[in-house]
């Protein structure tokens, strides 16, 4: 399978990455090189094979459903580009 320019723009939007008109053909070529490289996987017979879900056989750890951390909003927002009263600020999303 290969991608056309329209698909490249669609993927870029799904990935929330702005692309310029000049970038699209380059990205298309690079993505198609990778997609053509992975094409060889179609040679493998995977009938009856379970997809991997855990690479090491282990039981998932569980813990008490209790609060063990937190209570420091100033630390949480300290690295944010825009904040107000311990809240993250974003452009208006609801009119």
């Amino acid at each position, binding site marked *: 399978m290969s991608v056309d320019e329209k*698909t490249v723009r669609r993927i870029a939007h799904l990935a929330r990455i702005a692309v310029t008109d000049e970038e699209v053909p380059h990205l298309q070529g690079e993505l198609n090189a990778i997609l053509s490289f992975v094409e060889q996987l179609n040679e493998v017979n995977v009938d009856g094979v379970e997809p*991997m879900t855990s690479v090491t056989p282990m039981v998932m750890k569980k813990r008490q459903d209790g609060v063990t951390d937190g209570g420091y909003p100033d630390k949480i927002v300290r690295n944010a580009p825009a904040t107000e009263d311990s809240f993250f600020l974003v452009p208006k999303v609801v009119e």
Partner: protein
Amino acid sequence: MTELTHLTIAEARDGLKAKTFSATELAQAHIDAIQKAKALNAFVLETPEKALAMAKASDEKIARGEARPMEGIPLGIKDLFCTEGVVSTAASKILGNFTPPYESTVTSNLWNDGAVMLGKLNMDEFAMGSSNETSAFGPVVSPWRREGSNVSAGASGQIEGTHLVPGGSSGGSAAAVAAHLCLGATATDTGGSIRQPAAFTGTVGIKPTYGRVSRWGTVAFASSLDQAGPITRTVRDAAIMLRSMASPDAKDTTCVDLPVPDYEAAVTRGVKGLRIGIPKEYRVDGMSPEIEGLWHQGAEWLRAAGAEIVEVSLPHTRYALPAYYIVAPAEASSNLARYDGVRYGLRENGKDIVDMYERTRAAGFGREVKRRIMIGTYVLSAGYYDAYYVRAQKIRTLIKRDFEEVYAQGVHAILTPATPSAAFGIGEKGSGDPVEMYLNDIFTVTVNMAGLPGLAVPAGLDSQGLPLGLQLIGRAFDEETLFAAGQAIEDAAGRIALPQPWWA
């Protein structure tokens, strides 16, 4: 006395204990070496004040007879590990001046064992690369040069001539250890990012079994493949450092609750009675005869030391790299969705929130990272998920099964080359076709796909005078056998003479 920067971790530990020198002297010797090595671009942030304060605390501990396992040992930290109060960037513009209010479990473990932080090391952006050329801070220069090469450090401290890459993504870690700027460095490995740079720089690197080392506080690339490990100058040093890095961790549900063995004790175990497998599928087209010869030599060394050498088959080997280039980008596209200009790092304002996200991510991510996010987005998108992602995860099951069948035949470890070639020059690979760069990981990536431990150990020099490494692959959670066999190779090969400081 040997120069302080040329000691191994084991020698430094013994010298500190015997009070031959102080932790402060040891830290200062490294701070001075780093000052003279700026042309290598191995560090993205130096923390000399912190190093000296930590060394002073170590000297006090030593004076009281309370030295811990890594007391006073100066280390470099790959900039993928979050360090409290110290800027952590993953070598990406998108993290900006992100200053974590917490410490990663790995670095916490090292500081609790007395280690000293010299600074943060350069790397490929978000650990995506095999040459350290994708870093937002510019490439790292390998301390190695081809014989007869004209590469030099000019009067202005700039490198002149086409230099070699140190490998990647842990290129700063490997270069700093090889150039004697630190005694050891933390590194991470998703497809070969510890073992390939170790092989390129004549250093030792181990990627532990998935789950042996906590991933908490380490910037995520592909969560089912990422593992942290050390890069050092000897096998023994890797054993010492891994013991401190590894631990159970309630904060990482994929981190195992197994006690950490005394890896250093395993180093002198020897290989008598071990059965070592040689997988025929690793004889790939176009492999250099020097690598092939070295591989054969490595098997002979192990045989001479008492191991039994058997040919084994891992039939799905050739599918590991293409399957990896579906699984790893898929996980990366999901992990890197968090960089949205809201909670930390860079923000580029836009006309609405989606425009803000798109501009921020366009400005903040480099080319390789964007490419992988987009491939990952595509293979996870509606209509393609089964054809790409689910198929790749099925092939991953087959790759793991190959190893299980070999180990069920009584094989204790597997010997392969670490890389298909020695280090290459900057700009030589992957400028047109990204796959050309990806092929560097052909021998290492199977190990991540199967979650197994892999050790790269230097084994010789090629005709250009550049180091070549061998890889030992072990059973899950049997790093000890790798240290024993790795030491046998190091003993037989002799320690590689690292480059003289032409950059200083």
